Protein backbone atom coordinates (compact mmCIF):
# COMPACT_ATOMS: atom_id res chain seq x y z
CA UNK A 1 0.00 0.00 0.00
CA UNK A 2 1.32 3.41 -0.91
CA UNK A 3 1.37 6.54 1.21
CA UNK A 4 -1.05 8.16 -1.26
CA UNK A 5 -3.70 5.61 -0.35
CA UNK A 6 -3.07 6.08 3.36
CA UNK A 7 -3.31 9.87 3.07
CA UNK A 8 -6.50 9.68 1.00
CA UNK A 9 -8.28 6.97 2.95
CA UNK A 10 -7.55 8.48 6.36
CA UNK A 11 -8.04 12.04 5.15
CA UNK A 12 -4.67 13.13 6.53
CA UNK A 13 -3.39 16.66 6.15
CA UNK A 14 0.04 17.03 4.60
CA UNK A 15 2.14 19.51 6.57
CA UNK A 16 5.40 19.21 4.64
CA UNK A 17 6.21 19.69 0.94
CA UNK A 18 4.40 17.34 -1.44
CA UNK A 19 6.39 14.43 -2.87
CA UNK A 20 5.50 11.55 -5.17
CA UNK A 21 3.84 9.54 -2.44
CA UNK A 22 2.64 6.95 -4.94
CA UNK A 23 6.24 5.71 -4.89
CA UNK A 24 6.36 5.51 -1.08
CA UNK A 25 5.34 2.13 0.29
CA UNK A 26 5.50 2.06 4.10
CA UNK A 27 7.02 -1.13 5.49
CA UNK A 28 4.79 -1.17 8.58
CA UNK A 29 3.94 1.03 11.49
CA UNK A 30 4.63 1.96 15.09
CA UNK A 31 2.80 3.98 17.71
CA UNK A 32 4.37 5.55 20.78
CA UNK A 33 5.00 8.98 22.25
CA UNK A 34 8.29 7.93 23.79
CA UNK A 35 11.12 8.70 21.41
CA UNK A 36 13.51 6.03 22.61
CA UNK A 37 10.85 3.37 22.24
CA UNK A 38 10.32 4.53 18.67
CA UNK A 39 14.05 4.27 18.07
CA UNK A 40 13.90 0.66 19.22
CA UNK A 41 10.60 -0.42 17.77
CA UNK A 42 9.74 1.49 14.61
CA UNK A 43 10.48 -0.41 11.41
CA UNK A 44 12.78 1.15 8.86
CA UNK A 45 10.63 3.11 6.37
CA UNK A 46 7.54 2.56 8.48
CA UNK A 47 4.98 5.13 9.55
CA UNK A 48 5.06 6.44 13.12
CA UNK A 49 1.85 7.53 14.82
CA UNK A 50 2.35 9.95 17.70
CA UNK A 51 0.88 12.79 19.69
CA UNK A 52 4.26 14.50 19.88
CA UNK A 53 4.64 17.50 17.60
CA UNK A 54 7.94 19.08 18.66
CA UNK A 55 11.14 19.35 16.63
CA UNK A 56 12.74 16.18 17.91
CA UNK A 57 10.29 13.92 16.13
CA UNK A 58 11.93 15.06 12.90
CA UNK A 59 15.33 13.86 14.11
CA UNK A 60 13.85 10.47 14.94
CA UNK A 61 12.04 10.33 11.58
CA UNK A 62 15.22 11.18 9.68
CA UNK A 63 17.38 8.67 11.56
CA UNK A 64 14.94 5.82 11.02
CA UNK A 65 14.15 6.96 7.46
CA UNK A 66 10.47 6.75 8.24
CA UNK A 67 7.97 6.95 5.38
CA UNK A 68 5.93 9.45 7.37
CA UNK A 69 5.08 10.67 10.85
CA UNK A 70 1.36 10.90 11.55
CA UNK A 71 0.68 13.49 14.25
CA UNK A 72 -2.61 12.75 15.99
CA UNK A 73 -5.11 14.56 18.17
CA UNK A 74 -4.84 17.70 16.08
CA UNK A 75 -1.48 18.55 17.67
CA UNK A 76 0.22 21.17 15.50
CA UNK A 77 3.97 21.35 15.04
CA UNK A 78 5.44 24.86 14.81
CA UNK A 79 6.83 26.28 11.58
CA UNK A 80 10.41 25.58 12.70
CA UNK A 81 9.61 21.88 13.01
CA UNK A 82 7.96 21.81 9.59
CA UNK A 83 10.94 23.61 8.02
CA UNK A 84 13.29 21.14 9.65
CA UNK A 85 11.21 18.24 8.34
CA UNK A 86 11.33 19.63 4.80
CA UNK A 87 15.06 20.05 5.09
CA UNK A 88 15.54 16.49 6.32
CA UNK A 89 13.05 15.05 3.83
CA UNK A 90 10.73 13.80 6.58
CA UNK A 91 7.01 13.73 5.75
CA UNK A 92 4.70 15.08 8.44
CA UNK A 93 0.98 14.29 8.31
CA UNK A 94 -1.65 15.52 10.70
CA UNK A 95 -5.10 14.41 11.80
CA UNK A 96 -7.67 15.20 14.44
CA UNK A 97 -8.16 11.47 15.08
CA UNK A 98 -6.66 9.86 18.15
CA UNK A 99 -3.64 7.58 17.92
CA UNK A 100 -5.88 4.62 18.71
CA UNK A 101 -8.19 5.41 15.82
CA UNK A 102 -5.39 6.02 13.34
CA UNK A 103 -3.66 2.77 14.21
CA UNK A 104 -6.95 0.91 13.92
CA UNK A 105 -7.61 2.37 10.50
CA UNK A 106 -4.10 1.59 9.27
CA UNK A 107 -4.41 -1.97 10.49
CA UNK A 108 -7.76 -2.27 8.76
CA UNK A 109 -6.22 -1.02 5.51
CA UNK A 110 -3.81 -3.91 5.75
CA UNK A 111 -0.68 -2.08 6.94
CA UNK A 112 0.93 -4.74 9.12
CA UNK A 113 4.53 -5.20 10.09
CA UNK A 114 5.97 -7.87 7.88
Amino acid at each position, binding site marked *: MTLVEIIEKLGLELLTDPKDFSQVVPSGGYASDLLSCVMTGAPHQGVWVTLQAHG*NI*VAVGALLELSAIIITGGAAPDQETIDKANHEGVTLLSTGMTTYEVVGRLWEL*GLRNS
Partner: protein
Amino acid sequence: MELSSLRAEHVITDKEAKTIGRIEELSYELRIGEVMTRNFISVAQDMRMEQVLDLFREKRISGAPVVAEGSLAGILSIEDLIRCLRAGDTQALVTKYMARQVVTIRAGDTVIEALKLFTQKQYGRLPVVDESGKLVGILTKGDVTRGVLRALESDYQMEEIRRYRASHLFEDIVSERSSLILRYTIAPRDFACGGQASSSIKKALLRLGATPQIARRCGIAVYEAEMNLILHTPNGGTITAEIEPHLINIKVEDDGPGIEDPSLAMKPGYSTASEQVRELGFGAGMGLPNIERCVDEMSLESAVGVGTTLTMKIDLQPPAIELRHRYAVSLGRWEKTRPAIASRQAGESGPEGEVAT
Protein backbone atom coordinates in the same frame (compact mmCIF):
# COMPACT_ATOMS: atom_id res chain seq x y z
CA MET B 1 17.70 -16.11 -17.97
CA GLU B 2 14.69 -14.66 -19.71
CA LEU B 3 11.83 -13.27 -17.72
CA SER B 4 9.38 -15.18 -19.83
CA SER B 5 10.92 -18.45 -18.73
CA LEU B 6 9.96 -17.78 -15.12
CA ARG B 7 6.79 -19.75 -14.62
CA ALA B 8 4.87 -20.58 -11.53
CA GLU B 9 5.75 -24.24 -11.66
CA HIS B 10 9.40 -23.65 -12.42
CA VAL B 11 11.67 -24.36 -9.47
CA ILE B 12 14.85 -22.37 -9.44
CA THR B 13 17.97 -24.31 -8.57
CA ASP B 14 20.91 -22.83 -6.68
CA LYS B 15 22.95 -22.81 -9.83
CA GLU B 16 20.32 -20.85 -11.69
CA ALA B 17 19.75 -18.56 -8.75
CA LYS B 18 23.27 -17.24 -9.10
CA THR B 19 22.52 -16.04 -12.60
CA ILE B 20 19.32 -14.26 -11.66
CA GLY B 21 19.97 -10.66 -12.48
CA ARG B 22 18.77 -7.51 -10.88
CA ILE B 23 15.81 -7.27 -13.26
CA GLU B 24 14.45 -10.62 -12.12
CA GLU B 25 15.09 -9.60 -8.54
CA LEU B 26 13.20 -6.37 -9.08
CA SER B 27 10.23 -8.16 -10.55
CA TYR B 28 9.95 -10.04 -7.27
CA GLU B 29 10.40 -6.85 -5.20
CA LEU B 30 8.35 -4.26 -7.07
CA ARG B 31 4.64 -4.16 -6.34
CA ILE B 32 2.00 -3.73 -9.04
CA GLY B 33 0.77 -0.63 -7.20
CA GLU B 34 4.17 1.00 -7.67
CA VAL B 35 4.27 0.64 -11.44
CA MET B 36 0.64 0.67 -12.60
CA THR B 37 -1.08 3.61 -14.29
CA ARG B 38 -3.36 5.35 -11.82
CA ASN B 39 -4.89 7.91 -14.15
CA PHE B 40 -6.39 5.45 -16.56
CA ILE B 41 -9.20 5.96 -19.05
CA SER B 42 -12.33 3.96 -18.40
CA VAL B 43 -15.58 3.43 -20.25
CA ALA B 44 -19.02 3.79 -18.66
CA GLN B 45 -21.35 0.85 -19.25
CA ASP B 46 -24.04 3.00 -20.86
CA MET B 47 -21.67 4.22 -23.60
CA ARG B 48 -22.17 3.18 -27.22
CA MET B 49 -19.46 1.40 -29.19
CA GLU B 50 -19.26 4.38 -31.54
CA GLN B 51 -18.24 6.63 -28.65
CA VAL B 52 -15.65 4.08 -27.57
CA LEU B 53 -14.22 4.08 -31.07
CA ASP B 54 -13.79 7.86 -30.91
CA LEU B 55 -12.35 7.66 -27.42
CA PHE B 56 -9.77 5.01 -28.35
CA ARG B 57 -8.76 6.98 -31.43
CA GLU B 58 -8.55 10.29 -29.58
CA LYS B 59 -6.61 8.91 -26.60
CA ARG B 60 -4.56 6.51 -28.70
CA ILE B 61 -5.36 3.52 -26.52
CA SER B 62 -6.16 -0.04 -27.49
CA GLY B 63 -8.33 -1.06 -24.57
CA ALA B 64 -10.11 0.18 -21.45
CA PRO B 65 -11.98 -1.21 -18.45
CA VAL B 66 -15.74 -0.83 -18.32
CA VAL B 67 -16.82 0.62 -15.01
CA ALA B 68 -20.20 0.51 -13.32
CA GLU B 69 -20.50 2.54 -10.10
CA GLY B 70 -16.79 2.45 -9.39
CA SER B 71 -16.41 -1.30 -9.79
CA LEU B 72 -15.19 -3.29 -12.73
CA ALA B 73 -17.92 -4.62 -15.05
CA GLY B 74 -15.80 -5.80 -17.96
CA ILE B 75 -13.03 -4.92 -20.34
CA LEU B 76 -13.04 -3.69 -23.94
CA SER B 77 -10.17 -4.23 -26.33
CA ILE B 78 -9.47 -3.28 -29.91
CA GLU B 79 -10.52 -6.82 -30.96
CA ASP B 80 -14.00 -6.20 -29.54
CA LEU B 81 -14.18 -2.99 -31.55
CA ILE B 82 -13.21 -4.83 -34.73
CA ARG B 83 -15.92 -7.43 -34.13
CA CYS B 84 -18.45 -4.65 -33.67
CA LEU B 85 -17.30 -2.78 -36.80
CA ARG B 86 -17.52 -5.94 -38.90
CA ALA B 87 -21.06 -6.44 -37.71
CA GLY B 88 -21.83 -2.80 -38.50
CA ASP B 89 -23.19 -2.50 -34.98
CA THR B 90 -21.59 0.70 -33.70
CA GLN B 91 -24.80 1.88 -32.03
CA ALA B 92 -24.69 -1.09 -29.64
CA LEU B 93 -23.96 -0.57 -25.93
CA VAL B 94 -20.48 -1.49 -24.71
CA THR B 95 -22.01 -4.20 -22.53
CA LYS B 96 -22.83 -6.16 -25.69
CA TYR B 97 -19.22 -6.48 -26.82
CA MET B 98 -17.13 -6.20 -23.64
CA ALA B 99 -15.50 -9.27 -22.10
CA ARG B 100 -17.15 -9.98 -18.77
CA GLN B 101 -14.77 -12.62 -17.44
CA VAL B 102 -11.94 -10.32 -16.53
CA VAL B 103 -8.70 -11.50 -14.99
CA THR B 104 -7.56 -8.89 -12.48
CA ILE B 105 -4.45 -8.48 -10.43
CA ARG B 106 -4.04 -6.99 -6.95
CA ALA B 107 -2.11 -3.79 -6.34
CA GLY B 108 -0.17 -5.51 -3.56
CA ASP B 109 1.05 -8.36 -5.78
CA THR B 110 4.58 -8.37 -7.09
CA VAL B 111 5.36 -7.54 -10.70
CA ILE B 112 6.37 -11.15 -11.36
CA GLU B 113 2.72 -12.20 -10.94
CA ALA B 114 1.73 -9.81 -13.72
CA LEU B 115 4.55 -11.01 -15.96
CA LYS B 116 3.33 -14.58 -15.54
CA LEU B 117 -0.19 -13.58 -16.54
CA PHE B 118 1.03 -11.54 -19.49
CA THR B 119 3.04 -14.44 -20.89
CA GLN B 120 0.56 -17.21 -20.07
CA LYS B 121 -2.61 -15.53 -21.25
CA GLN B 122 -1.37 -13.13 -23.91
CA TYR B 123 -3.18 -10.21 -22.28
CA GLY B 124 -2.31 -6.65 -23.24
CA ARG B 125 -3.52 -5.09 -20.04
CA LEU B 126 -4.68 -6.09 -16.61
CA PRO B 127 -7.11 -4.19 -14.40
CA VAL B 128 -5.61 -3.67 -10.94
CA VAL B 129 -7.86 -3.95 -7.90
CA ASP B 130 -7.28 -3.22 -4.21
CA GLU B 131 -8.04 -5.57 -1.30
CA SER B 132 -11.72 -4.70 -1.44
CA GLY B 133 -11.93 -5.44 -5.17
CA LYS B 134 -12.18 -1.80 -6.21
CA LEU B 135 -10.54 -0.86 -9.51
CA VAL B 136 -7.48 1.29 -8.72
CA GLY B 137 -5.38 1.16 -11.87
CA ILE B 138 -4.43 -0.46 -15.13
CA LEU B 139 -1.26 -2.36 -15.82
CA THR B 140 0.28 -2.81 -19.26
CA LYS B 141 3.59 -4.41 -20.21
CA GLY B 142 4.83 -0.89 -20.88
CA ASP B 143 4.09 0.06 -17.25
CA VAL B 144 6.15 -2.90 -16.05
CA THR B 145 9.08 -2.01 -18.30
CA ARG B 146 8.99 1.62 -17.21
CA GLY B 147 8.71 0.67 -13.54
CA VAL B 148 11.62 -1.75 -13.72
CA LEU B 149 13.77 0.74 -15.62
CA ARG B 150 12.99 3.47 -13.10
CA ALA B 151 13.94 1.18 -10.23
CA LEU B 152 17.11 0.10 -12.02
CA GLU B 153 18.05 3.69 -12.63
CA SER B 154 17.69 4.67 -8.99
CA ASP B 155 19.63 1.53 -8.02
CA TYR B 156 22.34 2.46 -10.43
CA GLN B 157 22.55 6.05 -9.30
CA MET B 158 22.74 5.04 -5.65
CA GLU B 159 25.44 2.54 -6.42
CA GLU B 160 27.42 5.09 -8.43
CA ILE B 161 27.27 7.68 -5.69
CA ARG B 162 28.17 5.15 -3.04
CA ARG B 163 31.13 3.83 -4.96
CA TYR B 164 32.37 7.29 -5.78
CA ARG B 165 32.17 8.37 -2.19
CA ALA B 166 33.59 5.21 -0.74
CA SER B 167 36.46 4.92 -3.11
CA HIS B 168 37.94 8.29 -2.40
CA LEU B 169 38.99 9.41 1.01
CA PHE B 170 40.54 6.33 2.48
CA GLU B 171 41.96 4.93 -0.73
CA ASP B 172 43.53 8.04 -2.17
CA ILE B 173 45.06 9.34 1.02
CA VAL B 174 47.96 7.13 1.98
CA SER B 175 49.14 6.86 5.54
CA GLU B 176 49.87 4.07 7.94
CA ARG B 177 46.55 4.65 9.57
CA SER B 178 44.09 7.19 8.23
CA SER B 179 41.07 8.38 10.14
CA LEU B 180 38.54 11.14 9.86
CA ILE B 181 37.56 12.92 13.05
CA LEU B 182 34.22 14.69 13.41
CA ARG B 183 33.66 16.86 16.49
CA TYR B 184 30.41 18.30 17.79
CA THR B 185 29.70 20.51 20.79
CA ILE B 186 26.28 19.94 22.31
CA ALA B 187 24.65 22.70 24.34
CA PRO B 188 22.48 21.83 27.35
CA ARG B 189 18.69 22.17 26.97
CA ASP B 190 19.09 22.91 23.28
CA PHE B 191 16.15 20.79 22.16
CA ALA B 192 15.88 22.53 18.81
CA CYS B 193 19.29 21.22 17.75
CA GLY B 194 18.66 17.72 19.10
CA GLY B 195 19.60 15.15 16.49
CA GLN B 196 21.89 17.37 14.46
CA ALA B 197 25.15 15.68 15.42
CA SER B 198 23.72 12.18 14.95
CA SER B 199 22.21 13.10 11.61
CA SER B 200 25.52 14.61 10.45
CA ILE B 201 27.51 11.55 11.50
CA LYS B 202 25.03 9.28 9.78
CA LYS B 203 25.28 11.26 6.55
CA ALA B 204 29.07 11.28 6.72
CA LEU B 205 29.13 7.51 7.12
CA LEU B 206 26.87 7.02 4.12
CA ARG B 207 29.12 9.24 2.03
CA LEU B 208 32.12 7.24 3.12
CA GLY B 209 30.47 4.08 1.86
CA ALA B 210 29.11 2.52 5.06
CA THR B 211 26.04 0.35 4.55
CA PRO B 212 22.71 2.08 5.31
CA GLN B 213 22.21 -0.37 8.14
CA ILE B 214 25.43 0.50 9.90
CA ALA B 215 24.85 4.21 9.33
CA ARG B 216 21.41 3.87 10.91
CA ARG B 217 22.70 1.96 13.92
CA CYS B 218 25.34 4.59 14.43
CA GLY B 219 22.78 7.39 14.03
CA ILE B 220 20.52 5.90 16.69
CA ALA B 221 23.38 5.38 19.16
CA VAL B 222 24.69 8.92 18.71
CA TYR B 223 21.17 10.38 18.88
CA GLU B 224 20.56 8.82 22.28
CA ALA B 225 23.93 10.05 23.56
CA GLU B 226 23.29 13.48 22.10
CA MET B 227 19.88 13.73 23.78
CA ASN B 228 21.43 12.64 27.08
CA LEU B 229 23.81 15.61 26.89
CA ILE B 230 20.93 17.96 26.08
CA LEU B 231 18.58 16.55 28.71
CA HIS B 232 20.77 15.69 31.65
CA THR B 233 23.94 17.81 31.74
CA PRO B 234 24.29 21.31 33.16
CA ASN B 235 26.96 22.38 30.66
CA GLY B 236 26.40 20.12 27.66
CA GLY B 237 29.29 18.11 26.29
CA THR B 238 31.19 16.97 23.24
CA ILE B 239 30.81 14.18 20.73
CA THR B 240 33.87 12.99 18.84
CA ALA B 241 33.53 10.43 16.10
CA GLU B 242 36.68 8.95 14.66
CA ILE B 243 36.04 7.09 11.43
CA GLU B 244 38.53 4.57 10.12
CA PRO B 245 38.02 2.34 7.10
CA HIS B 246 37.00 -0.59 9.28
CA LEU B 247 35.75 1.02 12.48
CA ILE B 248 34.00 4.01 13.94
CA ASN B 249 34.96 5.06 17.43
CA ILE B 250 32.70 7.53 19.19
CA LYS B 251 33.42 9.32 22.43
CA VAL B 252 30.82 11.36 24.28
CA GLU B 253 32.08 13.43 27.20
CA ASP B 254 30.53 15.79 29.71
CA ASP B 255 31.51 17.36 33.02
CA GLY B 256 28.49 16.56 35.09
CA PRO B 257 26.38 15.66 36.91
CA GLY B 258 27.63 12.07 36.61
CA ILE B 259 25.70 8.83 36.97
CA GLU B 260 25.51 7.38 40.43
CA ASP B 261 25.08 3.78 39.39
CA PRO B 262 25.90 3.04 35.74
CA SER B 263 24.48 -0.48 35.94
CA LEU B 264 21.13 0.97 37.04
CA ALA B 265 21.25 3.44 34.16
CA MET B 266 21.74 0.52 31.80
CA LYS B 267 18.49 -1.05 33.00
CA PRO B 268 15.71 -0.61 30.44
CA GLY B 269 13.01 1.65 31.80
CA TYR B 270 15.12 3.26 34.50
CA SER B 271 15.06 7.03 34.14
CA THR B 272 15.86 10.13 36.14
CA ALA B 273 14.18 12.46 33.66
CA SER B 274 12.06 15.34 34.95
CA GLU B 275 8.32 15.54 34.36
CA GLN B 276 8.85 18.38 31.87
CA VAL B 277 11.28 16.32 29.82
CA ARG B 278 8.99 13.29 29.90
CA GLU B 279 6.18 15.33 28.42
CA LEU B 280 8.35 15.79 25.36
CA GLY B 281 8.56 12.05 24.95
CA PHE B 282 11.98 11.60 26.50
CA GLY B 283 12.81 9.76 29.67
CA ALA B 284 11.60 6.35 28.56
CA GLY B 285 14.68 4.92 30.22
CA MET B 286 15.72 3.31 26.98
CA GLY B 287 18.56 5.59 25.93
CA LEU B 288 21.58 3.66 27.14
CA PRO B 289 20.04 0.22 26.45
CA ASN B 290 19.32 1.45 22.92
CA ILE B 291 22.94 2.46 22.50
CA GLU B 292 24.09 -0.90 23.79
CA ARG B 293 21.90 -2.64 21.24
CA CYS B 294 23.28 -0.63 18.35
CA VAL B 295 27.01 -0.77 18.96
CA ASP B 296 29.60 -3.53 18.94
CA GLU B 297 31.47 -2.29 21.98
CA MET B 298 30.54 0.21 24.63
CA SER B 299 31.95 1.56 27.82
CA LEU B 300 30.29 3.93 30.26
CA GLU B 301 32.44 5.53 32.92
CA SER B 302 31.01 8.00 35.34
CA ALA B 303 31.68 9.72 38.62
CA VAL B 304 29.16 11.90 40.43
CA GLY B 305 30.21 15.53 40.35
CA VAL B 306 32.93 14.84 37.80
CA GLY B 307 31.18 13.75 34.63
CA THR B 308 30.54 10.89 32.27
CA THR B 309 32.49 9.42 29.39
CA LEU B 310 30.73 7.12 26.99
CA THR B 311 32.70 5.34 24.29
CA MET B 312 31.18 3.27 21.53
CA LYS B 313 32.65 1.24 18.72
CA ILE B 314 30.89 0.10 15.59
CA ASP B 315 32.54 -2.19 13.06
CA LEU B 316 32.14 -0.86 9.55
CA GLN B 317 32.79 -4.28 8.14
CA PRO B 318 31.05 -7.11 9.92
CA PRO B 319 33.45 -9.66 11.44
CA ALA B 320 33.73 -12.96 9.61
CA ILE B 321 32.58 -14.90 12.65
CA GLU B 322 30.12 -13.93 15.31
CA LEU B 323 31.78 -13.07 18.58
CA ARG B 324 30.01 -13.21 21.90
CA HIS B 325 30.01 -10.05 23.91
CA ARG B 326 31.24 -9.83 27.45
CA TYR B 327 29.62 -7.51 29.92
CA ALA B 328 31.55 -6.15 32.87
CA VAL B 329 30.26 -4.01 35.70
CA SER B 330 32.35 -2.35 38.36
CA LEU B 331 32.02 0.78 40.49
CA GLY B 332 31.32 3.73 38.22
CA ARG B 333 31.79 1.66 35.09
CA TRP B 334 29.71 -0.42 32.67
CA GLU B 335 31.30 -2.18 29.76
CA LYS B 336 30.36 -4.29 26.77
CA THR B 337 33.34 -5.76 24.98
CA ARG B 338 34.18 -8.54 22.62
CA PRO B 339 36.91 -10.82 23.84
CA ALA B 340 39.68 -11.63 21.41
CA ILE B 341 39.14 -14.90 19.56
CA ALA B 342 42.07 -16.50 21.40
CA SER B 343 40.64 -15.80 24.86
CA ARG B 344 37.24 -16.97 23.72
CA GLN B 345 38.69 -20.31 22.84
CA ALA B 346 40.44 -20.46 26.20
CA GLY B 347 37.15 -20.16 28.02
CA GLU B 348 34.16 -17.98 27.64
CA SER B 349 33.67 -16.63 31.12
CA GLY B 350 35.97 -13.82 32.04
CA PRO B 351 37.36 -13.00 35.48
CA GLU B 352 34.75 -10.31 36.03
CA GLY B 353 31.84 -12.67 35.60
CA GLU B 354 29.94 -12.85 32.40
CA VAL B 355 26.36 -11.99 31.71
CA ALA B 356 24.71 -13.85 28.88
CA THR B 357 24.48 -12.00 25.58
